[in-house]
């Protein structure tokens, strides 16, 4: 309650100096309670605040499908926002509402995943490259042969599909690599841990594990069961990055998949509203790979680790050239008027 009152007081205070803060930006996201998405939303809030040009954010953030996102985007149009930054439920399903928004003069930026509606701007992580980069490194570590446990994301999700393409591309380059087990973690920590425990207990032979970002619990499972460690590839989640520098005998690599792409999307929307059009409608953010087997890789991991971050958050909390907020601002997770 105190926070609410404080928030109201701050809103009133900020309204007084609203002259410089002109834009109203809407946000639509369809996965709630996931570390990556929470960081994305915090990056959006932090960027809106740091830009000094956003009067208010209108956030539609809940667990729903593309039909629900159509509803959210149309509600944001009704709310009269100047721009909408959206993490699309899938590439085609929300095109109708995006078209309605851009027809109404609203700038639409899709972040994280692409949409096929040509009037939208896209700022997305390259998901195919994400999987390819990690899988290739893993297969090299395995000496180009052996069996890999393939722990995917959610069946039917667009990003999982793109990553599968990248994984298959790496597989094609290493003909002696086979898949020992293929499972869908649903990007759920508990589910992924149960699955790897089952695989270890079943005694299926494997020489490496590729994960779609459910990573730190996989390392936990190996440590707890005392099973011999194999090379593991994950995302740059804070918990996994810390394990790469601390768990004895663990060879692994973190592939960046910055949730801060949401902040970059807000930055792009503000640029367009200011009249600065980007050269291309689609901007792809390419992943980087940080491994712990070379001196150079370990230095990168050490630089990225941050004990203040929630273990499920990606450590790549900013994107050079796009986001302008500070580390403290994104951790505080406060938007304009909060």
């Amino acid at each position, binding site marked *: 309650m105190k926070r609410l009152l404080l928030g109201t007081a701050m809103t009133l205070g900020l309204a007084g100096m609203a002259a410089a803060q002109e834009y109203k930006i809407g946000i639509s996201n369809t996965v709630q309670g996931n570390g990556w998405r929470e960081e994305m939303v915090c990056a959006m809030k932090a960027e809106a605040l740091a830009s000094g040009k956003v009067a208010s954010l209108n956030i539609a953030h809940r667990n729903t499908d593309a039909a*629900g996102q159509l509803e959210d985007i*149309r509600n944001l149009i009704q709310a009269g926002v100047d721009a909408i930054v959206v993490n699309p439920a899938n590439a085609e399903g929300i095109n109708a509402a995006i078209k309605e928004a851009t027809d109404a003069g609203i700038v639409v930026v899709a972040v994280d995943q692409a949409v096929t509606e040509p009037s939208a701007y896209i700022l997305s992580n390259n998901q195919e490259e994400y999987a390819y980069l990690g899988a290739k490194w893993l297969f090299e570590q395995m000496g180009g042969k052996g069996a890999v446990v393939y722990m995917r994301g959610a*069946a039917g999700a667009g990003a999982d599909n793109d990553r599968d393409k990248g994984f298959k591309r790496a597989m094609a380059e290493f003909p002696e690599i086979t898949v020992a087990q293929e499972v869908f973690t649903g990007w759920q920590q508990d589910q992924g841990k149960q699955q790897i425990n089952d695989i270890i207990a079943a005694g299926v032979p494997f020489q490496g594990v590729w994960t779609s970002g459910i990573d730190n619990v996989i390392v936990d499972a190996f440590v707890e069961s005392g099973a011999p460690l194999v090379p593991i590839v994950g995302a740059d989640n804070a918990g996994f990055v810390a394990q790469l520098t601390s768990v004895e005998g663990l060879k692994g690599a973190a592939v960046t998949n910055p949730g801060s792409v949401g902040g970059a999307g807000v930055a792009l929307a503000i640029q367009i509203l200011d009249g600065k059009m980007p050269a291309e409608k689609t901007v792809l953010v390419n992943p980087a790979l940080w491994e712990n087997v070379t001196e150079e890789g370990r230095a990168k991991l050490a630089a990225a680790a941050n004990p203040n971050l929630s273990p499920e958050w990606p450590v790549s909390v900013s994107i050079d050239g796009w986001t302008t907020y500070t580390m403290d601002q994104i951790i505080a997770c406060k938007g304009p008027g909060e």
Partner: protein
Amino acid sequence: MRRWFDANAWTLGLAVLLAALLLATKLIQPGFGVSGLDSLARAALPFALATVGMAIVVLAGGIDLSIAAMMAVASVTGAVLMDGASDGQAAFIVLGVLGLGLLMGAVNGLLIVVSRVPDIVVTLAMLFVWQGVALLILNAPGGAAVPWLRALSTGSFPGLDWLPRAVVFLALVTALIWLPIRRAKLGLRLYAIGSDPLAAFRSGVPVGQTRIIAYALCGLFAALGGLSVTMGTGIGEPIPGPYLLASVAAVVLGGVVLGGGRGGILGPVLAVFTLRTVRMDLTLLSVDPNVAAIVEGTIMVAVVMFGAVLAARGRKG
């Protein structure tokens, strides 16, 4: 007159609540008008169709936890078949998908009647089966919807600017399917097995057969709901949306008694529109999204409790 009013008090109350909410929306956002009503109606359409299906099984004393998964099967089947189909072919595809819905529902009902396992267990198991079927048909969002189908729920009704086509579509299909059944012997039987299956059996109602029909009708509306998702998005989605819990909530809020036998179809449909309007207002007010879910739930509990108090008073008087 008095009796009609008493019998429909709950539905009338919901209609008043909805009108008040729409008025509040206009106050929050003075620009709210035809396009706002249209987006509200389009958002409500899949929820409303799922709710009608759920209401029918609940009235008949059951529950169908697989409704959202059946919608996903219908959505992907329609979208996959319509990809590249002509307008004429699409009409047959739509009929085929509706038939598929009837079939899926009938399978649910048959399993319940034959196995005598409780409906909640059977349909929970079938939820996973239909989910798997949907992913087998299409493992990622894709497919297409023909333009004429998408146009059925887009924009205003010709000549009446304020009347969204999605509302006309909903009213038409629901009336065409439900009204003849409600007025026929079958309607009475559905209510009869819902309020007291033993009494219904002793009065000569074929309980098993009626139950299977109730589930088949639920499947039919699930197929319509799945098609409406495809109409809205233009693609098929293999992962079920949030329609199961939303439809149960709307059925309860709409005055249908869980356990069966009492309630109607209009109440739950009005409840769907009420819940969608609440969601819209929360977005317009830019309420913290984590708080918004709590607000939605609280409103639902408050309305149902308020109604229960009123009903108890009415009985005393």
